[in-house]
């Protein structure tokens, strides 16, 4: 039963206030994209055991989507941040590196 702090309204939200949205920072491929690009966009998933970046919506709260950096092996949360970015912000990266020195970094 996770708790995540919604960066949009500041509430420490119970998992039951949230809707999960799987992998974050996917780049959309539309018409003109190669079959491989489109397949990668729609289906190929990192699904890591460890540090993961994912989408959540504060569905029963402020209604906003936000992003979370979380460890899928321990459920530890490194931080949450607004959805309007294409990669994790530096302070999140720094927090993760501090707690997971072996982490290979965002890619």
């Amino acid at each position: 039963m996770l708790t995540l702090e919604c960066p949009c309204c500041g509430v420490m939200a119970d998992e039951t206030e949230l809707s999960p949205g799987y992998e974050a920072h996917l780049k959309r491929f539309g018409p003109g994209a190669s079959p491989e690009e489109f397949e990668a966009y729609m289906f190929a998933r990192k699904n890591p055991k460890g540090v993961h970046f994912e989408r959540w919506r504060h569905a029963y709260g402020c209604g906003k989507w936000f992003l979370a950096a979380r460890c899928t092996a321990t459920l530890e949360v490194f931080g949450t941040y607004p959805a309007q970015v294409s990669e994790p912000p530096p302070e999140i990266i720094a927090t993760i590196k501090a707690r997971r020195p072996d982490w290979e970094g965002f890619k």
Partner: protein
Amino acid sequence: MSTRLAKGGRLIDRMAPVEFTFNGKRLRGYQGDTLASALLANDQMLVGRSFKYHRPRGIVASGPEEPNALVNLGSGARLEPNQRTTTTEVFDGLEATSQNHWPSLKFDVGVVNNYAARFLPAGFYYKTFIHPRPFWKHVFEPIIRRSAGLGKAPTTGDADHYEQAYAFCDVLVIGGGVAGLLAARAAADAGSRVILLEQSATLGGRTVVDETMVQGKPVDAWLSAIEADLAARDTVTIRTRTCGFGVYDHGYVLADERVADHTPGDGRPKHRLWRIRAGRIITATGAIERPLSFAGNDIPGVMLAGAVRDYVVNHAVSPGDRTVVVTNNDSAYQTALALKAAGLEVPVILDARDSATGALPDAARAAGIRVLTGRAIAKVKGGKRVTGISVCAQAGEGAVLEEVPCEAVAMSGGWSPVVHLWSHCGGKLLWDEAISAFVPDPARPPLNHDGSAMVTVVGAAAGCLSLGNILAGFGKASGKGAIGLPDTCQTPDGSVSVPPVWVMPQGAPIALRSKMWLDFQNDVKVSDVQLAAREGYQSVEHTKRYTTLGMATDQGKLSNINGLAVLAEALGQDIPQVGTTTFRPPYTPVTIGALAGEARGEIFQPLRRTPMHEAHEKSGAYFEPVGLWRRPYCFPRAGETHEQAVHREVLNTRENLGLLDASTLGKIIVKGPDAGKFLDMLYTGVMSTLPVGKCRYGLMCNEQGFLSDDGVVARIDEDTWLCHTTSGGADRIHGWMEDWLQCEWWDWQVYTANVTEQYAQVAVVGPNARKLLQALGGMDVSREALPFMQWADGTLGGFPVRVYRISFSGELSYEIAVPASHGAAFWAACTEAGKALGAMPYGTEALHVMRAEKGFIMIGDETDGTVIPQDLGLDWAISKKKTDYLGKRGQERTFLADPDRWKLVGFETLDGSVVPDGAYVIADGTNANGQRNVQGRVTSTYYSPTLKRGIAMGLLHQGPTRMGDVVEFNTVAGGTVKARVRDMVFYDRDGEKQNV
């Protein structure tokens, strides 16, 4: 015999006698008794039968670890099977019956299994009942099923209600013994908001039974003082009868409060499930005493030594006049002393250790009790109750040295800290050699959301088994941090020593080992675990599953460590090397009703009602669920079947006037400078060019390209559109819009608002539709003023309305939106004004029939998540000019772009019958897997009351090129139905009726 003592009993109130029944026999107890103590007070040693061999079973413990003394409690709508007598508070009128026997507790036919035990070792069922094949299901399995199970199955629903509640705290303390109380005080002193949970009705834990003085005060006075101290603080909440049964991630703890178990029928909720979110969790859950493994250790009258002490001290119950104590540690001597103090006889203490020199053994000797060291029980005698024991040397093979008659045996194999809650979220354990037990490893705690330690363990649960050391640990309290304690203030206790004694006597031969019970309820013996090891089931999980050790209702609280030790010995490994099985919640079984909470009956799920719901109920509507909405399926009149009602509604709508409650239709405002661009991405068609005042039908696809929703879009003003969605789609589509706006196109200037519930919507449909609106009066709804696919604001009958001239039936039709608070009144006004025009309400099924007659698709019928708009002949609603829309790239994939796909056509059966729902169009031959080839399937099929014949739509391989072909649908009876392929529009192909 076991009986009530004349004096004493900390917890019982002799002034408050209660009467209860056991197997119909009327018995008496006192308030403060558990059912177990009251049964013992009435000499009810035999209380149940074991799972597999149906052996006689008596009370062995005094807490939630009890494996044997389970009863059916109550009856009828208050029957509760498998209730533990040791945690059930007795009350006046309690009814209990024993379990797992036929025809009676004393004479149980199932006990033949016991005599055949030799043929029924662990896992015997995997090795037999293999032939002949049908016999497993029809002969062997039914016998096993009947013999297994424990309590009776209830036959009715539950008379009680339940509720749940959330709680938040900085520090949650689980366990109200001395360690828990001190931890709560330390945390409160540190300024934390604290909740303390205690599973039983009273605080104090073991200390109040085992000790006389705490911190220089008499134990009861000490307890009263700290209770009063905590109760006086605003920041501390204490909940008794509340078992914290599971620790979950991120500080989430579930606890079950037994609010009214002991006062059934008083109107209070039976249980309350607490959902607690704690910053830190302290478990002070104590330790559970382990049985010793000697032959006959399962006979009624053999009890845990601590339990015997509990019954004597708390309930003034004697387990028997003569009790033999057998132990490998000092704590059991307290039992001997308590028995002696109560005036009972302890013929001998058998101590498996070579010597016993501590204060307690000395006290026992001083009290005149005979103490034999290096001795063990060779065998317990008796059947349905203990009659005596044979003494042997622990070091030998069981040669009998002496016989001792007795009525009870108090055993102690040491103490296992309750590490369950520590382990639920991944806390790791260490094996402590001194006390021969697993203890929490403070270096590897379960982690909280921020990566910090989530749980701290104090008291006996940490392996700190002596009160002195517990108190000393709290003396080191630092006052820092939320819990006000160092994480490791409680450590395993060097002052207590429990040498390993896993089998008694050490060299017991098979005849004895096959009478030594590890798991009393599931009938797992030492010999079974040894057999599993020999057969290669060497992982502790394999052994558990193969023998069912630890899988009974006590979940191995008494048996796991003993079983593990036997396994380790059989494998020649160390215990920590073998490891434990995983500790899973719940710590003690939890009533399912409490987990379901308030959600039953009327509030089982939210039920969404339109503003006209009451009117429909009064009209006798038959409702169907549409998502969480309830919509009238049809409005049957007296004597009508649903089918007849639907036909009448269709015909009346086509001939006169029908009224449909369309309020559930989704309505989403999309507004902003970029709204047109946004909608052009969302819909397959173009919405940006829609003129103000007009409506356009649109399709939405997911990124895969599959059709997900449809509806009419109205342009409200220059930068505002109103998007209608399907009834089930409103929230989903609104969420979908917000997802794209927030996460992909966040720089686009677009706002959305879901106003679905702001409006009640009534579809006025049929040749008399305009007349009805004119009768209501207030705005011009003529063909010229309000042409097809336009909308207008105005008033009708005094109601503020927005009228959409759209049709889903092929008839002249208006959809009228009014503010929801006027919905019921507007519906009534339409009904009233419609009387003269032949108006009748119609339901969703008539709607479906009429749209099928017109060849309109329905999301969820023609679509199923694998269909693209191109399959449905909806190419006209897909812009060819747009470079992009959601789903466009997905639709370009080879399989979706294949011209060979199944496409939508109409079907009419040659004989006029209705194509069966769900039928497939068969093709010649079979595929490589032997399945009949198919070339299409029906998607909508109805009897058309308008055309007086069956009509259908469906997907067919290359359908549109096959007009006039005759195809065959399969039927489940094995035959086929022939149908001719045709276009989808069965009614008013030119659309003349809707355009009048």
